[in-house]
């Protein structure tokens, strides 16, 4: 098994880097498992890892259409935070934050978790009042939050446009210092290696094409590599949730799939040392350890399963970035990409048993799924293993739309593209 200690690095450097072993086996599908997890992304791999580690369930397969981590976990803007207003979100994302703080040790894999802070910039008194309210709500639940003045913003973001004559002048912000970023692929690879070592089969290039049924109950999956029976089938496919549920005969569900674009610039010397969001529109940005500016904004806004967006959003995001950093106008864009988001009706995830007997569902992450990866994996594994929702995810049950217990942090209502 691959270990990446300084000694190993030196040894392999001296022997021509020919001795590195693959981090996980190329598993062949067995005819039957206790649990089959559809989706080899962050959430699916984390679920497999915690099923094996915390609940002793190792007869598990993760089936992935493409290669592991080829979806949103391998390309996102990597922000990790727990700065929510509503208690259900706060408790869940704060568990995730605490898990991030020890994740590199837990996996013995450097996920490069960097607590460089996430600040929401405020541009008018009403916005600063809303930030004070959210910050107080966070602190009441034991989460760190600090209301920044204009001068404090200037101090931590020295390159930013602090002009009083800006269209949206910066008045202050809400900072969560413990928030930050992580190396996204390393998260997928770390969980994959950890799950593989505990006996989980990671099966790539294995697209699910249908479900095996015994009456109403799901008893396994049909894949391009043959049928695989399973006592429990867990679905963690993010933007493809609608499509996979369709295969199971569910044609209406409180999710819409939308495309979200993100952008990376050429590498620069350190210029932005925190993650920040622009409150005058919708823009979030940071700088990767390699030097590229990583940023994104709104989803394109129309239903889409195409992993590419359109130009109006590109223009929108660039103009917002220019409003904050006119001094970086000469920086060239290196690449952009689009990922498919499972936008839920209240902006919060859905993790539940069902909606069909034998199925377990993890979806609706909108575009905040990356930061939830550890807690989502742990809580989903708990739900699958014990056939009872983990206490922290009980509020995220599917029936909340029926009972009226929506968790709508932004208060936007049932229009997915606004969350």
């Amino acid at each position, binding site marked *: 098994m691959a270990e990446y200690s300084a000694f190993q690095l030196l040894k392999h450097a001296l022997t021509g880097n020919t001795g590195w072993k693959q981090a996980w086996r190329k598993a062949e599908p067995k005819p039957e498992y206790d649990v089959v997890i559809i989706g080899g992304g962050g959430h699916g791999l984390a679920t497999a890892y915690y099923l094996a580690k915390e609940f002793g369930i190792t007869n598990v397969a993760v089936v992935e259409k493409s290669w592991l981590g080829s979806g949103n976990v391998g390309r996102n803007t990597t922000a990790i935070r727990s700065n929510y207003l509503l208690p259900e979100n706060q408790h869940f994302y704060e568990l995730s934050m605490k898990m991030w703080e020890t994740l590199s040790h837990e996996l013995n894999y450097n996920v490069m978790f960097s607590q460089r802070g996430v600040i929401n910039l405020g541009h008018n008194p009403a916005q600063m009042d809303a930030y004070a309210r959210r910050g107080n709500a966070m602190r009441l639940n034991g989460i760190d939050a600090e209301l920044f003045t204009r001068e404090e913003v200037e101090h931590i973001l020295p390159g930013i446009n602090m002009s009083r004559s800006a269209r949206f002048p910066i008045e202050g912000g809400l900072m969560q210092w413990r928030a930050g970023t992580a190396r996204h692929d390393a998260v997928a690879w770390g969980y994959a290696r950890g799950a593989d070592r505990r006996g989980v089969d990671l099966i790539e290039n294995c697209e699910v094409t249908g479900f095996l049924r015994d009456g109403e109950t799901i008893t396994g999956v049909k894949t391009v590599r043959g049928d695989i029976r399973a006592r429990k089938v867990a679905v963690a496919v993010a933007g493809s949730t*609608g499509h996979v549920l*369709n295969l199971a005969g569910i044609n209406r569900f409180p999710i819409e799939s939308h495309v979200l674009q993100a952008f990376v610039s050429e590498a620069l010397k350190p210029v932005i040392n925190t993650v920040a969001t622009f409150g005058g529109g919708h823009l979030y940005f940071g700088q990767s350890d390699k030097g590229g500016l990583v940023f994104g904004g709104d989803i394109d806004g129309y*239903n*889409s399963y*195409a992993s590419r967006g359109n130009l*109006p959003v590109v223009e929108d995001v660039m103009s917002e970035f220019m409003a904050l950093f006119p001094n970086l106008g000469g920086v060239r864009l290196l690449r952009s990409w689009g990922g498919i988001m499972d936008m839920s009706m209240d902006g919060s995830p859905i993790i539940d048993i069902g909606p069909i007997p034998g199925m377990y569902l993890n979806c609706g992450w909108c575009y905040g799924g990356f930061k939830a990866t550890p807690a989502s994996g742990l809580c989903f594994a708990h739900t699958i293993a014990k056939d009872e929702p983990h206490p922290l995810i009980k509020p995220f049950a599917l029936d909340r*739309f029926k009972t009226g217990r929506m968790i709508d942090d932004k208060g936007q209502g*049932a229009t997915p*593209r606004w969350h």
Partner: protein
Amino acid sequence: MRITCPHCGPRDLAEFYYWGDATRTMPELGSADEAAWLAHVYDRPNPRGHHREHWQHLGGCRAYLVVGRDTATHEIFSIIFARDAAREPSK
């Protein structure tokens, strides 16, 4: 993506506003059928493939349109005025 407005011709995506799924029908306003309201407000077909949706040419003639579009490829099959769609039987 470009959308060909039946009134104005081919126009840039930025001129249009998206109103979402056009297959939903609202229950009668006096209806007390909870399941029907739940489905109308929260449930969507969300298909990968052919999708029927409402757009509005907000930056042009302001007409409401019903567009048939493939969500996997962004290819547009059909565009008609919403008023004509509403007059079609059995929608």
